[in-house]
């Protein structure tokens, strides 16, 4: 049974634009706020809006993980902001450096890429029904990761974990003079 039929979504475009708007505004605030804590709060708003977008894409598991991981991740960011950055000093610093031309160019290139993907993507991707009903989304992710037949992402997942482990060890080595 297709969940879209049983449980028709309400006001999809409205929520899409609402969440997207929040995300864009949050993203802009992240780079324009001088106060690092304000930036962090804007960042978390943007990330929560992104979780909402995942929900709208019938990927609730990803949305939940987004909330959990980024809440924790932003926490660490907060701690660094509070402990390492002197707010008074950063308030006086200039917000943008001289590479803004390069930045605009990069942003334009990225935007162009998105537009071209959007233009061509209509033919690349099938007209969108989700592959799995929402009720089985989590199970589907589990199957893609761990199932003996369909678990094709296991290796990639473990490699990514290893990368994080390396980062942790590196941080410990750098912080501790004598292990």
């Amino acid at each position, binding site marked *: 049974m297709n969940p879209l039929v049983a*449980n028709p979504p*309400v006001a999809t475009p409205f929520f899409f634009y609402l969440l997207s708007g929040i995300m864009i505004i949050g993203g802009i605030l992240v780079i324009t706020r001088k106060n690092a*804590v304000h930036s962090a709060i804007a960042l978390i708003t943007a990330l929560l809006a992104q979780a909402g977008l995942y929900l709208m894409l019938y990927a*609730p598991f990803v*949305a*939940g993980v987004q909330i*959990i991981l980024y*809440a924790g991740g932003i*926490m660490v960011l907060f*701690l660094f902001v509070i402990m390492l950055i002197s707010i008074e000093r950063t308030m006086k610093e200039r917000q943008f450096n001289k590479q803004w031309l390069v930045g605009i160019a990069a942003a334009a290139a990225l935007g162009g890429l998105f537009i071209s993907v959007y233009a061509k993507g209509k033919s690349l991707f099938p007209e969108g029904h989700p592959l799995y009903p929402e009720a089985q989304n989590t199970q589907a992710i589990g199957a893609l990761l761990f199932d003996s037949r369909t678990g094709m992402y296991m290796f990639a997942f473990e490699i990514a974990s290893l990368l994080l482990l390396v980062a942790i060890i590196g941080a410990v080595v750098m912080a501790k003079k004598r292990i």
Partner: protein
Amino acid sequence: MNSSLLQSIVDYVQSYLSSNQTPGVAGNWFWATVYVLLVFAGVSVGVICMNWLERKILAHMQVRLGPMRVGPHGLLQPIADALKLLLKEDIIPAEADALVFWIAPFIVDLAAFTVFIVVPFGPAHAVTDMNIGILFMLGVSSLSVLGIVTAGWASNSHYPLIGALRSSAQMVSYEVAMGLAVVSAIMMTSLSAEGGTLSMIGIVQRQQEQQVWFVFKFFPLGLVAFAIFAIAMIAETNRAPFDLPEAESELTAGFHTEYSGFRWSLFFLAEYAAMMAVSSIAVTLWLGGWLRPFPNALHGATWDLIFSFFPGLTFLFLGGLCFFNASRMPKHPFFKIQTMGLAAFGAVLGLIGLVLFVPGIRERVQDIFWFTAKVAAFMYLYIWYRGTFPRYRFDQLMKVGWKVLLPTGLALLILTAVVAMRTEVWAEVVVPMWLGFADLLRRIF
């Protein structure tokens, strides 16, 4: 035209009643809103009750009386407190970051209350049933730490900042152990025919199906997982003996030192709401959620009838307690109003109890009653801990989290996975072992 519109609205409202789903799943907006309001009101009333109960119970544990002046036995004290807090001046320190200072309590409250939309008070008594229910609860409740850190930072003062840092470190650390315990319970759900689930309602249904509360599943694995969660959840909610962020003797009031009046009351509300939320998780995952005791052993019409009397009986008992205490009030004209008030309160409780005996109602409130009773037991535990334990030191707290709970949780997770893969071994080896042990005990005593 008009009547048909009305008719369609009535149909819309009534259509839900026949369905056996949560309003969120059924997609009924009207009932979803009603449920949200009900849950919000219920949690708020719960916080008010907790306020009074904590003060009274703690007082009686400490050979005091607690509030006695405002209303009979201080029953109106929470209302007086709320009024006082609302009328107090709302101070924002001059050096504080006003915007963040203003937002912080709302973040905390939002996180504390949002989780309740997936809490299953009954098979159909939840705002919605999410596929990722437990993940959602953990995720959203972990957002409250953001509010705490922003509050501490925005106050621009030492004690709140240290309190906030402690709080964040503590909550992030204990979330790990908590998550491991939760995963072990979720693993147990996968032993059902329908497969595993993250849905809160699904988890309770799996317990019903497997005919065991998960706290007793694979004894003692479930019990250990439950213990880990029960410890971690106290640390998560910053309550004694893990109340370092608010350690009075060290940090005055921790992250909300600079808050006053209404804003402070929001923190208070959030703290108690968060306590109820994590208790609900514990009840759902390990204590069979809304299930009444022994639903499988003691089933049948007679037992159903007997258990359906419990809600009414409880309220009648409370009402009777009020009458008993009213009869013990001093017989002095000054106490006339208080005595009458207590009796009236008892009468109201008794009336509610009587209403709960009405056939149509008593079946419907059963689930909610049992769920609430289990959560209330946890609330009592919280108060009991506070009356009993000294406070951990911060490094000891971290040691408990990382060196005790985390390894235990990991080992437990692996063990549970192994056992879940080879249930027949468990059934053939371990269960007879426990039975033999029980038999031995029976012979000795």
